[in-house]
């Protein structure tokens, strides 16, 4: 099985160690991992903002770059949804878009659905974790149970969070087009946060936004991408 890692531009720049963790974990599970170096961004920010003409060439590039892989795995629900749900619409008449959509998986969904993994190890024993459901993973991809299962099986204590399934207010360009509303939404997430050691999610965008807001408000809480924690679960 040849899996190509799509790191996504945000994780590449801001959560690079999550990529290392993902590669290590996949390899430990016996998967051959490749990193096509021509990759950049899937085009989501432009597409979501309505600039389809700017997004289309990026989507076409993406199809080219990941043509060979059996599976494309990425640590981001919203980029996965971009490829799985929106490429076919953005690139009508491209059967490869449908094909790639079928081969693309958000990281935790790939582990559970394709590899059939449930338990990675017990490296998160007793760790109090708050999980933020990224909206696209949750509602567009239906990835709800997979990350929770993997964390729980690794011994983590998932703290109940009233607003766990509410949008954090990032929304790509939304966060700069409507900054005040975006921040008010982050504040609601933060105000309802229970006691936890780590805040995690599958989406780098949400984490970047929440981590920034937490720091600005002087709240001391570690923020780590899901892939990082899952490697910790395995390696202890």
């Amino acid at each position: 099985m040849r899996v190509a890692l799509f790191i996504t531009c945000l994780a590449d720049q801001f959560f690079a160690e999550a990529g290392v963790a993902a590669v290590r974990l996949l390899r430990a599970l016996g998967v051959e991992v490749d990193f096509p170096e021509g990759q950049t961004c899937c085009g989501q920010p432009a597409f979501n903002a309505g600039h389809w003409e700017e997004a289309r060439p990026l989507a076409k590039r993406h199809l080219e770059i990941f043509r060979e892989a059996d599976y494309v795995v990425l640590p981001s629900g919203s980029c996965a949804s971009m490829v799985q749900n929106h490429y076919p619409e953005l690139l009508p008449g491209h059967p490869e878009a449908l094909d790639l959509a079928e081969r693309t998986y958000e990281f935790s969904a790939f582990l559970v659905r394709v590899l059939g993994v449930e338990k990675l190890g017990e490296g998160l024993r007793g760790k109090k974790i708050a999980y933020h459901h990224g909206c696209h993973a949750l509602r567009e991809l239906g990835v709800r149970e997979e990350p929770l299962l993997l964390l729980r099986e690794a011994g983590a204590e998932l703290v109940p969070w009233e607003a766990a399934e509410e949008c954090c207010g990032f929304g790509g360009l939304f966060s700069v087009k409507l900054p005040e509303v975006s921040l008010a939404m982050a504040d609601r997430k933060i105000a309802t946060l229970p006691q936890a050691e780590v805040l995690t999610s599958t989406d780098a965008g949400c984490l970047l936004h929440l981590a920034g807001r937490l720091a600005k408000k002087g709240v001391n809480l570690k923020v780590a991408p899901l892939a990082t924690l899952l490697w910790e679960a395995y390696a202890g």
Partner: protein
Amino acid sequence: MRAKAKLYPKEAARLLREKPGVREAVTGATLHFERNRLRAYAEVPIAEWRERAKALKDHVLSHLDHYLELAEKRLRENGVQVHWAETPEDAHRLLRAVVERHGVKRAVKAKSMLTEELGVNPLLASLGVEVFETDLGEYLIQLLGEPPSHIVGPAIHLSLKEIQKLFHERFGTPLDASPEALAQVARKVLREAFLSAELGISGANFLVAETGTLALMENEGNIRLSTSLPKVHVAFVGIEKLLPRFQDLALFLPLTARAATGQRLSTFVSLIQGPAREGEEGPEEVHVVLVDHGRTALLADPEAWETLRCLRCGACLNACPVYRQTGGHPYGYVYSGPIGAVLDPGLLSLEEAYPLPYASTLCGACLEACPVKIPIPKLLLTWRHRAVAEGLSPAWEKAALAAYRRVMESPTLYRLFSKALRGLPLPQDLLPLLRAWTEGRGPLKPSPKPFHQLWREMEEPHGR
């Protein structure tokens, strides 16, 4: 109502800054509604209900001319006077004629979003008619001279304190009067109005074509009084409100109630079959005004017509984390929240409503809530795409996204950008965006090395 949708970004920011209480009130109330909805949905095979409701609405909308003709015929058979209004002016003309013919001095009005669209209250005021909104929430905002902030809960943005203050100033009630005491005062004023008004005005939740029946849902009993006590009743009905058969109400009444407030059925349902007959009590004259106001054009739009399935239940507003921060006022038009963001561009024009499709993070909570499965996120994307195609997006956005595309199209440029993020000066285009980001969130902290570099180091341990 005059649209001020263009001001949305400024007004949203201003409201958050100047009236933090609104955010608190709206969040509290919508979360309450939302929990009720979830509970009420869970009691029934909701997936099947929603699918059936969607299919039925799609059927009516795709045979609208047939059902409108049928409805008109049945309404006339029931003794109702039927009128067609393509524009607000048409509606005004009809209403003016009624007012003049009956020498109307006072009107009572049941809550109706369509009459907000048509500007019925200002018209009546200009004709010297005294109008009373009779829904309690609607009455409050009428006293304040504000438009509704929510489709179902028009005064959702007000705190008890504000209402106490308002009543204190208007009616001399104590500043700490209980909600019950305040309701008593309003009831007294409104009862007097019900008994003396010559005209009752309402909207309609549904109009059944097969039987010519108007269906109206409510919890206070004011709609029933507004439509039955005055001798003349005028109902404004959007042409998308049709249902084919009487039995369809058995699905739509409970579905709407569950979606809107989490009730199994609203406390009152009025089914109106025309004016009072011999020996009956009720209005002598009933008028139904079938209103287009942009709906036919929207129906003809192959990418946006689905918005017309909307039942105006407000569930998408309650579910929307963006709406919760500000309530409805900053949206600047009758319909706010997720449905407003996709309906207003269709009813007004995209140019006039431009910022509204951007008032969303595309989180999808609205679609999950909507009883008739209107694909709001998809419609938001459609309107955004059109806005860009029509050149409505601001210059900075165009420049930023063009620059973004250039960078992302070339791995070489992307790597340069990656270096820049870690120390080199960043391109000018990006700076305003970065500032908008970092103001609320502190400086961006990239990883010491990007992953594409770590990958090389992993694969070639001795580096290059």
